[in-house]
């Protein structure tokens, strides 16, 4: 029974993520996604296993159906990076409990956790971009130039800033509302 409800949770979160990704796929929302927050929330509420499943399913699906085009060889790196959010969500639930109010101190901690994960995700995927672009002749200068440049910085700022904001405002709301909707005690 637990397995069935977990599958339902993974399916519901993944559907929500793909829908929100699509809604935020315009250039005006470059690198701003609810995906990270929702993976974090799923792991926070339902444990690492569910969070990781949501991360793998949604990121893999998005890598294929994104209107930008298929992500290709970088897909495994995107999925691996997304697991960070699941891990952070699970760890956060252990550290700060189930009660998190919007704009509370804990919500700021969650925002900060998401921002750190976003930073690490950008770092990891930019390194993967360098690996894929320059393989097999990748050198340190190319790696550094691909990972750290004004171009990636702009995307990173948008990613980290939006993840922080979603962590402070959206994640606590989900963490409060979803257990109530499911008839669970927080």
């Amino acid at each position, binding site marked *: 029974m637990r397995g069935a409800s977990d599958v339902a949770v993974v399916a519901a979160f993944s559907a929500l993520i793909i829908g929100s990704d699509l809604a935020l796929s315009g250039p005006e929302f470059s690198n701003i996604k609810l995906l990270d927050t929702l993976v974090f929330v799923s792991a926070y509420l339902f444990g690492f296993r569910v969070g990781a499943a949501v991360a793998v399913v949604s990121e893999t699906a998005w890598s294929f159906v994104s209107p*930008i*085009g298929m992500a290709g060889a970088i897909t495994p790196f995107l999925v691996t990076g997304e697991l960070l959010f699941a891990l952070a969500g699970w760890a956060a639930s252990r550290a700060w409990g189930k009660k998190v109010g919007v704009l509370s101190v804990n919500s700021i901690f969650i925002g900060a956790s998401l921002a750190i994960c976003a930073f690490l995700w950008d770092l990891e995927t930019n390194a993967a971009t360098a690996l*894929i*672009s320059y*393989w097999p002749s990748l050198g340190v200068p190319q790696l550094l130039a*691909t990972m750290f440049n004004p171009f990636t910085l702009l995307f990173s700022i948008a990613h980290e800033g939006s993840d922080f904001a979603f962590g402070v405002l959206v994640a606590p709301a989900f963490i409060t509302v979803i257990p109530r909707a499911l008839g669970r005690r927080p």
Partner: protein
Amino acid sequence: MMPTKGTFWGVVAVLAALLVLSSTATVIYYGEYEAAASQNQIYAGELKTALASYRTLQGSYDSSLSDYNETISLLVTAVANLNTSTPAYQEASVALSTLWGEYQALASSAGETHLIYGMHMLVDYGNGTRVWYNDTAAQPGWNAYVVTLVLLDGRVQATWYPQYGEHFVTGIGGVSDSQSEYWFLLTYNSSSSWQVAQVGADAIPAVNGTTFAWIYCPENSEYLPTCPLP
């Protein structure tokens, strides 16, 4: 004076001869007319068949042109999403410009009118060389990166970041980023004139009249160009 009997029969003979001659000529020409008419029928039939074949050919040609148009569109989508170091990208990005030129020539000679946007692009190489590409044709669905690629015959160095859906352009027309100078993308609109693009080239859609520029320039501590905007 009455004509003699001999004269009378002579005239009759001449008239009869004329009748015979004209009848013979008529029969000959009628025969030839019949032959010509029959030949005409054959030619008309052949012409009809040829016309039908021509129409089929024209239909096939129009369909081929449409397919050509769609193929270029698909190729552009592929090029815009390929890792820039792959041979497929490198070959396609160079071929794209030629294919687009050939398609336009074919479409215009066939009198075909496909929807094409006119875009304007400036490339400022930072050494006094400024090249304007005015009213250049772009297919609906293209973006500033693809337009740059096509106009410069693929001579664009870039890294594709699939996670952002953007190319980081590091070289244009054989001039690459250095330790102190970089390529900046500018957009233009009539109200605010030139400004540094807030998004990458892939996020600037090709619509009629879109104007953008690439300038090669040193940057300040805020990663903004220090040279005067065009």
